[in-house]
């Protein structure tokens, strides 16, 4: 089985489990609190993933060492690229 199929299978299993709990398709009569927790789960997982991404980026920005020479070189290259594109007619 390919990785794609594995992922799709995993996601559909989790999705079915979530649907069963949220829409009470099996009449499991779970306590109301569990259903309250279950239905925002897809959005919750997305938000948590977003927070993790943001934190990782922030942490790496804060701990990345400055490179003076590389910074100057990059600024020069950016200016060069801007001038070149302006010459060719791109308006930013």
């Amino acid at each position: 089985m390919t990785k794609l199929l594995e992922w799709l299978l995993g996601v559909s299993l989790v999705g079915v489990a979530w649907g069963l709990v949220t829409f009470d398709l099996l009449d499991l009569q779970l306590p109301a609190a569990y259903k309250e927790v279950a239905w925002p789960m897809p959005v919750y997982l997305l938000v948590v993933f977003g927070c993790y991404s943001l934190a990782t980026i922030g942490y790496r920005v804060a701990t990345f060492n400055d490179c003076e020479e590389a910074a100057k070189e990059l600024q020069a290259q950016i200016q060069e690229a801007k001038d070149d594109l302006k010459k060719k007619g791109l308006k930013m």
Partner: protein
Amino acid sequence: MLQHMKATGADQAVGLGLVGFSLFLFTYYTVWVIVLPFVDSDHVIHSYFLPREYSVILPGVAALILLLCVGTFIGVVTWKNRTPKKVD
């Protein structure tokens, strides 16, 4: 020889600000979605959180706004660079 200095000033502030913000957001959202349903409805903590529906609506609206901004930017740059068709 390449110079390597520790990240300075603005970089650290922005980076740590991002980390702090995402930690706060994670904590608030986790309490809202996962902890609150198990807390008695007359506990004072509920007054710090909006009704439950907003825990899904607000991220949805935020995602829409993000998509709108990206789309608008692409549209504006594309518009500025349109060239009129040449007529022979």
